[in-house]
């Protein structure tokens, strides 16, 4: 047992609230305020996982978002979450967690055995092997996949919900440490609408750990308390803890995810509240105060459980009351780690501090440490750590003062814990997400954000390389004051006073030498999560992967879920050394969102489940439900597909619906068709331009079918348009094309022909449309309507009337998509269901039969009418559809798409045309999507002649029919072709696509 509890003044745990939790099937005790990591350490648990490539034992290294190793699986069943960092999991009573790696067990891992051969697994070793024999790769891959990966994906649907919240604010402050709190205070005092977010449960940043500083005479956390109280009193300020700003996009759009309930036991979560909330924040001004993260030094076996960052050791001690070890070696190259060593020593831990610098820290710090009883070794570095599953000691070497070379051996220490500090790395991620570049600061040894920030993005505190609190706060004050001045607001208050302390410069050392050429000694890890060692970077560069992006991609440096927070700068520095270039020239890899991982659920927010996409219903839907309709999804709409009676399947129902309609009367809900009111003195001219056929001579009271082409000459939509008055038209479009056509009309009018006086208004939702179809449809209408003359001569096919149906004002069009005598009644949709039910009542004596889209498809196919999108696919011209009758090539204005019809290929031979097909066996229904061959003995690749677009059993004809597009189809009537699907071919005869009533007697009846 290495770690243990120790009382610390100002600790952030609540000893009055003991908790218990389970990790890998063992129950442990902890306190409210612990993280899973602090609780595990307090219980002496060190081995948390196995490494990615070599299966090496791994333990906790950090204490926050930077943690590379301690990836755990939280909870089980529907609530399970993979890959959480133990350092970020707030502990709650009854928490259940487990390790994610290790097979067959964490303690005894097979990959760990293989990993002993790690010297034969250089970077890119996958690319260099597993190639022979060719067929064996799937076998290798299976093992590689199993060996890789951390947690397990949940298998049950997520029982919790997520939402989004948009903000439009003046100032967003990212980071609730000293700098962020002060920035928010100043912005808040200036009356600006301000939002402060911080990823942790408690504001304070590094002040949560650091105990010695005094700000304006107050202890750090007292000052934090004062700030929070003030911010809470300002109505224009919002403070969101547990909220991680994870992405910054153009124009200061910041995405942040707030963990609303993750810190609560599953049983205490409020089902009415989301688990997490995605904040989408538009801020005029972003102030980045995201601080810095301490990086470790790179040395031999620096991955043995028990090796941590000094900041982590320090934080576990002061924040959580956990001493991470009894005998601790602190290795540093800077002054800050002395604080950790000092607090540990003062807490009774036996501390040795090795400083890579010959001169060590500022004298006062050295003295303080010695006074606390710690041993100090200047000019020393760790050559390698001893121990396997836990640290047992360390071998030190003496370092040259200038070159990073070993000049002698050092002591071999017996310790149970090693803390290392390689200096701080500014958290520049957000600054760089949309194009900002960090700059290398050789004094502070970090890529930092420039002092001047970017337009509307200010950077304050440690993100600019201000490591010392006094510097950070004075820079913050100056930067925010300047900014407020820029907004025309003064700032109130003086910069917080913090005593300046003397600091010795850090040493520019990243990889501690062990006296051996790189690759010969103990593996020294740069990226823990991806098992990238210092030698791997050298190897990659030797192999000419010299761009830092190549180094990253070849070795996987920084690709983990920690996104290289600990490893990047060390990796860049080692690459720089191998390349013989300064770090600044090597540059950084690209920073990409997200800063820390964010659930898909939070990204999707409310747009899942019943609100994933609108379900659009017609006004008559309840009637269809009552008649037990099955539905078809058409665009966003739900349309009745067929209306099965008891015991009927699709085919039985459709046969019945078809026969009833052809023989008596059927009724269909056609409300989903797009409807556009087109009006103006130039409406007719506009239609001439937008449709391929002519509209000049359509009289009021008449309807016409129109084809719309795109400029490529291909059919994009069709529908019937009725002339209501000389300057007024009721246009219909396909259901799926409604929005597109509406936009199409507006765009052509506004961009190309603004001089035409015409306007378009969508009326799709206003009209409920009921199609009454069949020989008895007239009789039904006559029963419902007294003010329209339905006589066949008075109200002809393709006529339209306005009048009263069932007492309702209505537009009635005698149009037919079935070849039958048929009428479409349009009424105000609020009366839609009433109209439908009145039609049902009036039609009862004729056994009126509601039908859905499937019957509609059969009826129209019997007449050879196309459905855009089914019989066409964006490559069909009107000629290809045998619809040149709907193209007015002589119209004066060159309508949309006309010119394209004249192009050499479009006008040429050898294109496919729409035809009818009759299978020689009338019982065989061809497969829609079947391909057509001219010969049965065609071999692959076969010369495909076209395909079947629509195919049905026609109950009316008592046989199967089909529509197809066929190469040169217009000239092939009478040919026998072979219709091929999944290896079977069926002979069919090419015929006209009009199967029923070629003369049109029925629709004109």
């Amino acid at each position, binding site marked *: 047992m290495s770690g243990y509890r120790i009382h610390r003044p100002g600790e952030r745990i609540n000893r009055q609230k003991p908790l218990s939790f389970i990790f890998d099937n063992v129950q442990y005790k902890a306190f409210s305020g612990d993280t899973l990591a602090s609780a595990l350490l307090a219980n002496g648990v060190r081995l948390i996982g196995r490494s990615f490539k070599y299966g090496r034992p791994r333990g906790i290294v950090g204490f926050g978002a930077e943690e590379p190793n301690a990836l755990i699986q939280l909870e089980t069943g529907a609530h399970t979450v993979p890959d959480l960092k133990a350092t970020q999991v707030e502990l709650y009573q009854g928490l259940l967690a487990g390790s994610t790696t290790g097979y067959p067990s964490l303690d005894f891992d097979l990959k760990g055995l293989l990993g002993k051969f790690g010297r034969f697994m250089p970077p890119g070793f996958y690319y260099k092997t597993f190639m022979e024999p060719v067929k064996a790769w799937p076998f290798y891959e299976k093992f590689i996949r199993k060996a890789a990966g951390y947690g397990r994906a949940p298998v049950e649907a997520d029982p919790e919900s997520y*939402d989004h919240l948009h903000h439009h604010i003046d100032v967003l402050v990212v980071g609730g440490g000293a700098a962020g709190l002060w920035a928010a205070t100043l912005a808040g005092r200036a009356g600006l609408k301000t939002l402060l977010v911080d990823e942790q449960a408690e504001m304070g940043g590094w002040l949560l750990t650091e105990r010695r500083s005094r700000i304006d005479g107050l202890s750090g956390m007292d000052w934090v308390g004062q700030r929070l109280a003030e911010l809470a009193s300002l109505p224009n300020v919002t403070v969101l803890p547990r909220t991680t700003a994870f992405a910054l996009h153009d124009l200061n759009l910041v995405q942040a995810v707030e963990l609303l309930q993750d810190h609560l036991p599953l049983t205490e979560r409020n089902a009415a509240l989301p688990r997490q909330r995605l904040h989408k924040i538009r801020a005029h001004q972003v102030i980045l105060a995201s601080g810095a993260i301490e990086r470790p030094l790179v040395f031999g076996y620096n991955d043995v459980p028990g090796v941590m960052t000094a900041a982590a050791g320090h934080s576990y001690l002061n924040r959580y009351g956990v001493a991470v070890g009894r005998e601790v070696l602190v290795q540093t190259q800077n002054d800050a780690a002395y604080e950790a060593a000092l607090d540990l020593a003062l807490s009774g831990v036996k501390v040795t501090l090795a400083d890579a610098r010959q001169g060590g820290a500022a004298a006062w710090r050295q003295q303080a440490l010695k006074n606390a009883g710690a041993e100090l070794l200047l000019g020393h570095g760790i050559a390698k750590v001893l121990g396997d599953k836990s640290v047992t000691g360390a071998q030190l070497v003496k370092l040259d003062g200038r070159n990073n070379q070993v000049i002698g051996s050092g002591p071999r220490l017996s310790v149970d814990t090693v803390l290392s500090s390689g200096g701080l790395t500014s958290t520049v991620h957000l600054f760089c997400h949309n194009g900002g570049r960090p700059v290398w600061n050789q004094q502070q040894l970090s890529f930092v954000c420039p002092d001047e920030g970017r337009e509307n993005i200010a950077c304050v505190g440690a993100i600019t390389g201000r490591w010392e609190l006094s510097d950070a706060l004075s820079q913050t004050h100056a930067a925010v004051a300047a900014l407020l001045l820029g907004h025309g607001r003064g700032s109130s208050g003086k910069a917080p006073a913090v005593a300046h302390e003397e600091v010795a410069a850090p040493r520019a050392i990243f990889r501690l030498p062990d006296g051996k050429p790189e690759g010969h000694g103990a593996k020294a890890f740069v990226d823990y999560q991806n098992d990238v060692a210092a030698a791997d970077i050298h190897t990659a560069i030797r192999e000419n992967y010299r761009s830092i992006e190549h180094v990253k991609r070849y070795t996987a440096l920084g690709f983990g879920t920690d996104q290289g927070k600990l490893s990047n700068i060390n990796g860049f520095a080692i690459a720089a050394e191998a390349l013989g270039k300064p770090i600044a020239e090597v540059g950084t890899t690209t920073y990409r969102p997200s800063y820390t991982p964010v659930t898909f659920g939070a990204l999707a927010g409310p747009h899942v489940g019943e609100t994933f996409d*609108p379900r659009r*219903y017609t006004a008559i839907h309840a009637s269809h439900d009552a008649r037990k309709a099955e539905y078809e999804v058409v665009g966003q709409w739900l349309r009745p597909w067929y209306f099965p009676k008891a015991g009927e399947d699709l085919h039985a129902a459709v046969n019945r619906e078809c026969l009833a309609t052809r023989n008596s009367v059927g009724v269909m809900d056609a409300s989903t068709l797009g409807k556009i009111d087109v009006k103006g*003195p130039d409406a007719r001219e506009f239609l001439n331009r937008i449709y391929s056929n002519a509209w000049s001579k359509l009289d009021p009271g008449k309807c016409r079918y129109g084809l719309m082409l795109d400029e490529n000459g291909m059919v994009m939509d069709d529908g019937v348009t009725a002339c209501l008055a000389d300057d007024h038209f009721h246009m219909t479009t396909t259901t799926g094309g409604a929005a597109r056509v509406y936009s199409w009309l507006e765009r052509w009018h506004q961009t190309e022909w603004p001089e035409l006086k015409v306007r378009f208004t969508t*009326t799709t939702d206003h009209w409920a449309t009921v199609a009454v179809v069949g020989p008895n449809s007239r009789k039904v209408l006559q029963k419902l309507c007294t003010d329209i003359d339905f006589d066949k001569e008075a109200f002809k096919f393709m006529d339209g009337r306005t009048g009263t149906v069932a007492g309702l004002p209505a537009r009635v069009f005698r149009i037919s998509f079935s070849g039958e005598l048929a009428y479409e009644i349009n009424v*105000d949709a609020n009366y839609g269901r009433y109209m439908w039910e009145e039609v049902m009542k009036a039609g009862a004596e004729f056994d009126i039969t509601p039908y859905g889209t499937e019957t509609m498809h059969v009826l129209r196919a019997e007449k050879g009418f196309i459905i855009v999108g089914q019989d066409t696919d964006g490559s069909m011209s009107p000629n290809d559809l045998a619809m040149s009758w709907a193209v007015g090539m002589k119209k004066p204005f060159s309508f949309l798409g006309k010119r394209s019809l004249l192009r050499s290929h479009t006008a040429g031979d050898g294109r496919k045309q729409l035809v009818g097909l009759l299978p020689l066996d009338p019982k065989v229904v061809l497969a829609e999507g079947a391909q057509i061959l001219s010969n049965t003995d065609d071999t692959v690749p076969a010369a495909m002649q076209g395909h079947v677009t629509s195919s049905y059993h026609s109950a009316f004809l008592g046989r199967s029919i089909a529509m197809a597009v066929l190469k040169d189809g217009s000239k092939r009537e009478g040919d026998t072709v072979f219709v091929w699907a999944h290896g079977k071919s069926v002979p069919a005869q090419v015929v006209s696509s009009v199967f029923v009533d070629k003369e049109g007697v029925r629709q004109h009846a």
Partner: protein
Amino acid sequence: MPKQGFQPFMESPLHHFKLDAEAQPRRTDGRIWCNELPHLGYAVLRGDTAEAGFAQLVEQVTGLALPLKAGAVSQGPQGVLMWTSPDEWLLVSHRQRLADWTAQLDAGFAEHKLFAQTVDSSGGLTLAWLGGTEHLTVLRHLGVYDFESIPLGHMVSTVLGKATVQVIRLDTDGVFVVFRRSFADYVWRLLRRAAQPYGFAVCQLEARSDHPLFAQLAAPRPSLILA
């Protein structure tokens, strides 16, 4: 327009939620209160403000000044007239009154040979009222527009999720949300879902004679059940 006799057979786009059955008197708690104002009359008004007589005719018929500024709303006890586009307005009133107005307007447009029209959209639109202290927050959950910035007497046309809506702000008490019939189910579910954390309740809406929209509820509520 049909006479009152037919109204019992009208169905609002939200009828399947049976809001009447769920509605309770509004209380002054922190909840989100919401309900539909069903069966109002809507007309899209198209015209050219540069044409002499157009604005005058509209005001003469409706008693509502034609709003010329983007997003502006004219209101009176008989209804509202909202700017939706430089040549387009949305008129909302009681169905019967609206039918009378549009008939008069169309006759007037024809008489004065104006390039203008009305398009009845009463079947295609509906309107919900959303109130409670956090009602703007509910909208902020769903839409990217800065809803807190809508001035009183203004409307904004924007998106909530994947639906286009008009949000009308007449006072600080709540907002009116106009949406299309076929999206009504979706918009209602979205609103309900977003409001849930604050406590969502359907409230009874009272006719208020002085209010441009609540006044329109004065007519008897039709039965929603079809025989």
